[in-house]
């Protein structure tokens, strides 16, 4: 049974790699093939890991991820107009589909998006006519023969260079970028606006959504995430701090302030509290690979929506319902504002999201089984199998369970990524990156 295998496979995870970033990891993203894994951190750096080629003589025929390239994507800047520093923290990285030997990705901080080209150089031309080996120009009198320079192998060098800088289009903090399925355009979203860019054009962008009120004092809702549809290049969605999702069709109008579809689950009046709105705020929205569903993450749950049904989600998964009675404390220490992300597996049969205490959760959509795992060095030795964790919500705490009050709310897993084809996952726990794979039988 395929679906059983998904969860069981993950249950038998092995820890293959813990990479340590110098800074807090702020985004994690596999590329389209899964060969490369990019992380962005608070210091503006991007670290790219590459999967080793499978080799027959290794015990495990799946490759490990090793550092492939590291570069400084963004630097801190100073905005004179507002007398404020612009953080260099990378908010999002999105890969472009590979079209030639080089790899391209978009990285964004609060204000600026950059297109980076990552290319390999493993050959060097030797035997120039006009200059010698050290690059010095030769005396023309000395040149007696004519030869064709030859490409000689050299140690592999991976170079990252910024090809485009898309700046000055966002007044507010960029929270999302998403590459369109036409592979020519992409959107960037901040708290109040969404812009559409062409990858070749940096000096202008089209504003396609603007929810800024004429009077800022009337502001009650902000944009929290946005994504392009994986197949329909005219469709995108954006989520809000009030727990709503709007689907827009760019063919309808130049400014997509009027949505085509409006997704909102009616509120349960029995669970209403002063925190209801805050916990309904959507922190992430992701289309399924099929394009038929989308998933939203709010503070306590993950919801799967059928794009054809606007009035409620088709599936709801509780991530850490035991926190509902602690909302006031979590409001006090600001944890209630944490923005967790979520992701699909390649076949859309499972979803994953993070929680506190370095826990992360996986849900199998078909069997409705779920599992809680922990990403921490203390509990995982390399090649060890991850043990499922359980939070004790009340009553007698069993052995190996952890009580809600012992959870460490400083250890939060906000960013996770799932390999597009295989059961390989990347989990960012503060400044550590964990990569797990299912065990080969």
């Amino acid at each position, binding site marked *: 049974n395929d679906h059983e295998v998904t969860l069981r496979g993950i249950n038998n995870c092995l820890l293959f790699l813990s990479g340590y970033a110098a800074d807090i990891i702020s985004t994690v993203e596999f590329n389209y093939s899964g060969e490369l894994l990019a992380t962005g951190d608070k210091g503006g750096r991007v670290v790219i890991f590459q999967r080793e080629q499978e080799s027959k003589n290794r015990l495990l025929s799946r490759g490990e991820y090793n550092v492939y390239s590291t570069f400084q994507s963004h630097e801190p800047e100073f905005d004179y*107009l507002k007398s404020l520093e612009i953080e260099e923290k990378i908010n999002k990285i999105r890969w472009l589909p590979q079209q030639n030997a080089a790899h391209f990705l978009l990285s964004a901080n609060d204000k600026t998006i950059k297109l980076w080209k990552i290319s390999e150089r493993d050959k060097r031309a030797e035997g120039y006519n006009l200059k010698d080996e050290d690059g010095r120009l030769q005396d023309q009198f000395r040149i007696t023969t004519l030869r064709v320079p030859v490409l000689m192998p050299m140690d592999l060098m991976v170079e990252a260079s910024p090809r485009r800088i898309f700046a000055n289009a966002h007044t507010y903090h960029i929270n999302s970028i998403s590459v369109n399925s036409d592979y020519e355009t992409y959107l960037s979203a901040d708290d109040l606006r969404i812009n559409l860019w062409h990858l070749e054009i940096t000096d202008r962008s089209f*504003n396609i959504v603007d929810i800024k009120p004429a009077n800022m*004092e009337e502001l009650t809702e902000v944009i929290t995430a946005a994504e392009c549809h994986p197949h329909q290049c005219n469709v995108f969605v954006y989520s809000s701090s009030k727990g709503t999702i709007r689907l827009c069709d760019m063919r309808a109008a130049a400014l997509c302030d009027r949505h085509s579809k409006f997704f909102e689950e009616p509120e349960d009046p029995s669970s209403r509290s002063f925190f209801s*709105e805050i916990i309904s*705020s959507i922190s992430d929205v992701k289309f399924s690979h099929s394009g038929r569903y989308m998933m939203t993450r709010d503070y306590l749950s993950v919801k799967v929506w059928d794009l054809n049904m606007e009035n409620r989600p088709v599936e709801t998964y509780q991530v850490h319902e035991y926190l509902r009675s602690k909302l006031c404390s979590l409001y006090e220490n600001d944890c209630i504002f944490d923005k967790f992300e979520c992701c699909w597996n390649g076949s859309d049969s499972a979803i994953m999201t993070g929680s506190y205490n370095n826990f992360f959760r996986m849900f199998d959509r078909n069997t409705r089984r779920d599992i809680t795992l922990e990403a921490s060095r203390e509990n995982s030795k390399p090649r060890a199998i991850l043990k499922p964790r359980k939070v004790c919500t009340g009553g007698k705490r069993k052995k190996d369970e952890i009580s809600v009050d012992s959870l460490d709310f400083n250890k939060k897993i906000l960013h996770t990524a799932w390999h597009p084809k295989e059961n390989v996952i990347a989990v960012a726990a503060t400044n550590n990156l964990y990569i797990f794979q299912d065990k080969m039988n």
Partner: protein
Amino acid sequence: MFSKGTKRKFSDGGEEISDESLLGARVASSYSLQRQSLLDMSLIKLQLCHMLVEPNLCRSVLIANTVRQIQEEMTHDGSWHMVTEAFCSAGQSPSERLVATEVLCRSREQDAEPKLFSVISYEGCCEEEVVADETLCSVSVSDTVSNVCLAGRMGQCWEKSELSGIERDEEALEDSRLGSGEEEEIDTEDGASTESPKTIGQVFGTFEIKNGSPGPDSALEELFSDVDTSYYDLDTMLTGMQSAPKMGPYDLLDSLAPSHSSPSIVSTPNCRSDLNELDHIMEIIVGS
């Protein structure tokens, strides 16, 4: 988490009160205490929002909405009116109020101490007293928080200067800041108070203690006018099809920089010296 409910004393000579209604009263008072505590916490968070270098807009909006909800409920209860009356009582001496606001200016801790909750209740202050409180803010010069408090307002002054075409080098900036001082019309929005420094005024403006019912909207009227008003006018030019926007010196440098070099205009050490200069200037303005 919540402040503990006060125990209700059973007066001997009074009417007999049934256990049920006593319990009900306890629950109700506990709820309103909790609600008040939540309101206080939210207001402190909002004020801290304004004190941070770059407020997180989503967080600010969510907290402000929470405050609005509480206010609405309290207005329906009628307890809002009681609260306003209590604050307007003549029991507090002006010096107490001044001390209270100084504490608010000084504190930068994310986890507000419970004692600050009681401080909030002092904000029955009139606007003029709030103005005087600024001098206390300026006492701790090294504390960038109190200076950033006013930075938002100053930023708007700069924006106006730019739009009116004044050359924006440092000296001119200082001149315009010093010159404009507190007389300059800060607000571009209607109905906003103009006399008082807005960042402090906003927190207190959220209560806007006037006799009678302050509608929830007017109570929060100043809340976001500082968030990005410096871009307000520039913004209207930038929406829609954005060609290369009107460039300030910052943008010009940015576009001139070679694409592969660092786009930062100043390295971080320079930022810090700029902030120190800013502190110094704030001290001069506020002290005057």
